[in-house]
């Protein structure tokens, strides 16, 4: 069945079953592989995207539920050549080891900063509590989010 989905400002039609998770539509149909498969059961946060500004787990979000929504993925923020300030903050803090969780971290942080432009450190930790990192990069991730928030204040 055909669905029109709006991702990063562009609407495209995809022909998939109604219960297909958004994750596979993004990665396999639209070629947006920045959003990662981690667990498939909304436990790790690697697949986090924004749906109408809310951070959701795309691995358990059926495509039929988001047809009328604005979806933002990591690719919608910026590129390696022109990173979004939040992405730049992750580069400045060297806030990645393997980097597999980082896309989800950034999207969860994006939601946080959109509703709270100057979070405290505990607020950052709480906002990212559902995003797992295995390399132990957590403190750099927190610093990157706080750095981006600080940059917000200056602009």
């Amino acid at each position, binding site marked *: 069945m055909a669905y029109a989905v709006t991702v990063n400002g562009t609407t495209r039609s995809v022909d998939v079953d109604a219960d297909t998770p958004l994750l*596979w539509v993004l990665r396999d149909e639209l070629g947006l592989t920045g959003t990662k498969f981690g667990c498939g059961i909304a436990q*790790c946060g690697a697949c986090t995207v924004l749906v109408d500004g809310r951070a959701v787990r795309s691995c358990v979000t059926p495509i039929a539920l988001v047809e009328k929504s604005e979806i933002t993925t990591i690719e919608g923020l910026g590129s390696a050549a022109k990173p979004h300030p939040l992405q730049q903050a992750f580069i400045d803090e060297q806030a990645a080891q393997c980097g597999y969780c980082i896309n989800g971290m950034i999207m969860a942080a994006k939601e946080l900063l959109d509703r709270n432009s100057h979070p405290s450190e505990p607020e950052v930790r709480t906002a990212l509590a559902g995003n797992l990192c295995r390399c132990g990069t957590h403190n750099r991730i927190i610093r990157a989010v706080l750095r981006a928030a600080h940059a917000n204040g200056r602009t």
Partner: protein
Amino acid sequence: MNAPAFNRRQFTTGLGALMLAFSLDPKVAPAQGRLPGSLQNNRKLDAWIGINADGTATVFTGKVELGQGILTALRQIAAEELDLPLDRVTMISGDTGRTPNEGQTAGSQSIENSGTALRLAAAEVRAMLLDLAAKRLGVPPDKLTAADGVIAAGDGRRLGYGELVADLDLDREATAKAAPKLPASHQLVGKSIPRFDIPAKVTGDAAFVQDLRLPGMLHGRVVRPPRYGSKLDSVDAAAVKAMPGVLAVVRDGSFLGVVAEREEQAIKAREALRKSARWTPGPELPDPARIFDVIKSLPSEDTTIGVKQGPAPEGARRFEAVYTKPYMSHGSIGPSCAVAEFKDGKLTVWTHSQGVFPLRAELVKMLKMRPADVRCVHLEGSGCYGHNGADDVAADAALLARGTPGRPVRLQWMRDDEFGWEPYGPAMVMQAKAALGANGKIADWEYELWSNTHSTRPESTTGTNVLPAWYLADAQKMGPPSAIPQPAGGGDRNAIPLYDFPRQRVIHHFVPDMPIRVSALRTLGAYANVFALESFMDELAAAAGADPIAFHLAHLKDPRARAVLEAVAKKAAWKEGEKGDGARGRGIGFAKYKNLACYVAVVAEVEVERGSGNVRVPHAWAAVDSGLIINPDGLANQMEGGIIQSVSWTLKEEVRFDRTGILARDWASYPILTMPEVPKVEIELINRPSERPLGSGEGSQGPAVAAVANAFANATGKRIRDLPLHPARVKAALG
């Protein structure tokens, strides 16, 4: 016993003849001189370095990026010696078709082995370029200077490296005679160069093998049995074959998988296959309540190491304690993945294996192909921290791709495949005994440990060491596992104390039988041994009425060991004799990793909620001496990450199982540390430019577990000797 892939009967012969994939033993003719680092086994200069006509360099390494930043560090080393800017050096890594064979990227050895090879090869290539320029310009080489890929004479004449390429012959053996630069003249080494891989990783560019998309690519999934050694009796392949998008159901004996046009179709087909599959279950697993007794009761091969034969003490107080460490999972955030393609009788596999050459050797055996017809190419995966599902999924993908020749098959394991089937870090038992003399110093030390192997990696033994091979109709067995020899050691890694005890003995009970599948997890036995050894030191310090850091120093002459202990005490503002208050306390842990790599000391603070039994580690401090530091921020990142991972292992992690199989299947049944629980970490780096660089990626985990366990004892007055420090265990200890 219930060995998954191999049992006692199969390894009655041949134990002495095994060759370890990660052995540093020279495999060269005696006539050849010994060359440093990985030059020893990859002796040609052009195996490592190519100078291109445009003046850039292509640098080849057999080591691979695992998220540890190694390709940035190696690029710094090569660019430094070549006198080239970093952006004119391209790294090619881990490709059986292109790079040197450096075995596994493991054991914190990449800087020491590949880094040493590249430093010497690059210095030699630079010297050759200077010689060529000297001939061309008619000036002695020592009157020339090289910078930014240009060689200049005093009179202003200049030659770019590209202009010398035609005469540069790198198809010759390295001599390792060209002296590398002195640390004082380093422009790139020692600098916190930002990692080259991070921009793509934070912007969603394809950075991982999981993201590889090839034309015509299909998606596969596999169905694993209920437990080790099960046999597939029947499955309704026809019904699944008729499902939308399904191109092939691949069954070979008890190996079962599916290939579909789209990923979600493959996942649905996997579910259908799983529901219709009927299995004869393999042998039951051991009783988890008795697992440590089981391990101790299995036949073992015993080795006595680290013997010091001082006089037997008289009138000393004697102490004894037993410590345990459970099975632990690598817990990669991204399940393992590979893409495989059969085309014109040749197989290409894109893989995040830590060793593309050893993996190729296993695929060649499993598929009965020629090495020349199989190419393994490394692409990054999610962090692996040792031998996770990377090699197995590559073998799975190859089996699926064989069923759809001409079209590449991408296979990513599901979460429960990874948790249920990867080889875990082994459970271990450590028993320590000591005598404390009247002078408050340790007079005698005896330590025994029981452990399975810490490597069942590809090529770690004979047989075929990839999971699906054991389930094929023409099943191939794994060879007998073996112990990794000292001085690095496997289960006995860091089992020999670095302390100046007058009398000591360490016995390694190597247990070949594996009731649960195990292999290499970051640090191998060091995490468990440093936990036991440093916990016991802390117990003995308390018995001696001594401050634990002072007690450590009283038994240590090595100045570099003393320096990290003193540095961390200062960093943490440690107060001699500081005592916990029942809920909060601090502890110390120290090790020189493998007794031959970096020195690390960690102070950890714990907070104990007595009601719930929850333990938190709000803060940790560390000091590290890794010799010459290549990239300070990269080293700090590895230290921070190692400590946080170790705190997670220590507070939470245990692979649970029952008689019917593995119970860890997702992040609820195998929880790890979350963002609000992560300690603040402060690192002191001690740079020693005149010392060789030492491996560091695995240096902090042992000291960190010991610091946490000792902090718990300092806080509560109670000692927990079994990991992890989970709430039920804490409540029981506190009464």
